[in-house]
């Protein structure tokens, strides 16, 4: 019997400061035991429990992509007890990784469809995983147009900047980067994510799906924009967050109605979310 409570031992292979205010760091983990990486096979959109012995665990979306081998990456915002401790850890430290957990963006359903990705702030981690996945030469032909609207307060608060710049230069993905206010050297959009989405995003139709991740305020103003653009509620895909402990549907706290965010989610369509209590 597999023990879902027991993390895989991992070593911190690299730590990168991800934003100019140093509130986010990207941790690259390698598995200590051969074979564990294969057991950890995941899909873009899933999360894992970062497990620090003696401190606790924290559910974080997987930022690396299934097509990237040899490591897993997580970009972590310093907020609570575990993430603050994690930010003080060093390369070479040993900890645990439990997962992959939860469902993922519905890649089978999305095959052959146009994809609009709308992201805000540091909720871009599983979106990065998804973009890398879709842009992989093996996969790119399986999807139609890819549009990405990604906004942050300042250029320095955008995650994965090198990759964003590289994607800007490609012609098989339409990037719409934006920051809240003009900044020196910034050559892309200026303004909040919702209005930029309204201007730049493709019209919604049967063959187009939107994946939306961001802070509550961004979600609140983006959803009406998507509705206006013609996206049906079952074509708007979101990823929810709730306090979690076990991550596999047993400890009971992350329930929204009969759905458990950790196991039945975190990925839900707006249509599904509208049928559950707003307890997230």
């Amino acid at each position, binding site marked *: *019997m597999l023990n879902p409570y*027991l993390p895989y031992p991992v070593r911190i292979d690299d730590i990168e400061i991800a934003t100019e205010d140093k509130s986010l760091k990207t941790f690259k983990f390698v598995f200590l035991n051969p074979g564990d990486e294969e057991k950890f096979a995941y899909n873009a959109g899933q999360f894992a429990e970062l497990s620090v012995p003696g401190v*606790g665990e924290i559910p974080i979306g997987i930022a690396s992509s299934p097509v990237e081998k040899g490591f897993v990456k997580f970009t972590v915002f310093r907020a609570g007890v575990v993430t603050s401790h994690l930010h003080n850890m060093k390369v070479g430290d040993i900890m*645990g990784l439990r997962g992959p957990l939860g469902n993922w963006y519905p890649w089978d359903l999305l095959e052959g469809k146009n994809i609009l990705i709308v992201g805000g702030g540091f909720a871009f981690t599983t979106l990065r995983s998804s973009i890398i996945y879709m842009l992989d030469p093996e996969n790119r032909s399986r999807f139609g147009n890819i549009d990405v609207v990604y906004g942050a307060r300042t250029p320095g608060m955008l995650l994965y900047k090198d990759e964003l710049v590289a994607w800007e230069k490609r012609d098989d993905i339409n990037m719409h980067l934006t920051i809240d206010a003009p900044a020196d050297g910034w050559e892309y959009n200026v303004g909040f994510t919702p209005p930029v989405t309204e201007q730049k995003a493709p019209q919604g139709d049967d063959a187009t799906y939107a994946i939306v991740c961001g802070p509550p305020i961004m979600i609140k103003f983006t959803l009406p924009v998507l509705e206006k653009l013609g996206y049906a509620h079952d074509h708007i895909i979101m990823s929810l967050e709730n306090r979690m402990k076990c991550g596999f549907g047993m400890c009971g706290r992350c329930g929204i*109605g*009969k759905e458990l965010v950790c196991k039945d989610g975190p990925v839900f369509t707006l249509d599904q979310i509208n049928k559950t*209590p*707003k*307890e997230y």
Partner: protein
Amino acid sequence: MTFVKIDKKQWAQGLATLQKSYRLFGPSKEKDYYNYKALDVGEQPDFGFSNTRLSPKAILFPQSETIIEFSLDENAADHHIMKSIETDSSPRAILGIRPCDAKAVRLVNLNFDTPEYQDPYWVKALDATTFVGLACDDPKSTCFCTSTGCGPYNEEGLDLLLIEEDAQYLAKVLTDKGRAFAEAAGWNTATDGEADIDARKATAEAKITASVSMENLKNQDLMDLHGASFWEDIAFACINCGTCTFTCPTCWCFDLQDEVHGKTGKRMKNWDSCMFPLFTLHTTGHNPRGTKTQRLRQRFMHKLKYFVDKYDTGIMCVGCGRCVSQCPVNIDIRRVCDLMNNYKTDEAACTVQD
């Protein structure tokens, strides 16, 4: 051999024999109420109880259970590597578990043993346990098991069912585990008890006068019930303690906690409660169930609606009456269940929707 007769004179001897191969748990009087405890060698379970103050769930799902250990000593080769604890999975038996509590174990099992994930600590404990039920001839006024798909002679979840008679116990053997247990005790006097049991069962069932109605719960709209107007009234008295959830045999929610002593540490599963604000508190300070009304609603909606919709096996309540009799402020699940069952959507929407 479906029925075995156990002379009460042979009872103590049988238990003594059993203690060579089983850890025995049974009801015992503590101060002025009963609880289940691990019986010492030679100690008899005390069957003079109607039901115990706490349910026996802690025997399978301890309030605090260490599941993982680790060393934080950088000099140790395996430092910071988490290892599962080998919990005691030697055979054990719960003597005198009431049918309601035995059924509750089956309901909790739906949570801990799922097609995708199994909680190994629960599954091992459950596998190791023989459930020796004690039929309930004197139910309390707070009992309503007959309306929850259970009953004072219900056999679900039991390996043996004991029926107490004057000078003997009649034991109905229900599973191979139960048969092995009876054999290990040397209880092998076969007898015929079906007719006897039917009459006793009918008498016991007739004594249960309290009930809940649940026939409409499945068809009620989830969001309508969630927004119902009665929650504020029910929740007013609630003090948001964990009495209902901790005494409940079907409540399974838990917390994971790390503790460190010196250079060694452990990870524990601790009972948790949907009544506690910390249960759902986000790191940001946002709490999706930040008011007591929302938390109380979660408890009842989970038991009486979400569970019903999810598993289609009725409500997540066996009618043991513990929360009814122990709630410090008399919030009565029977009343709440009836309100939910009979709710009509044209009533005013609840003001605590969000």
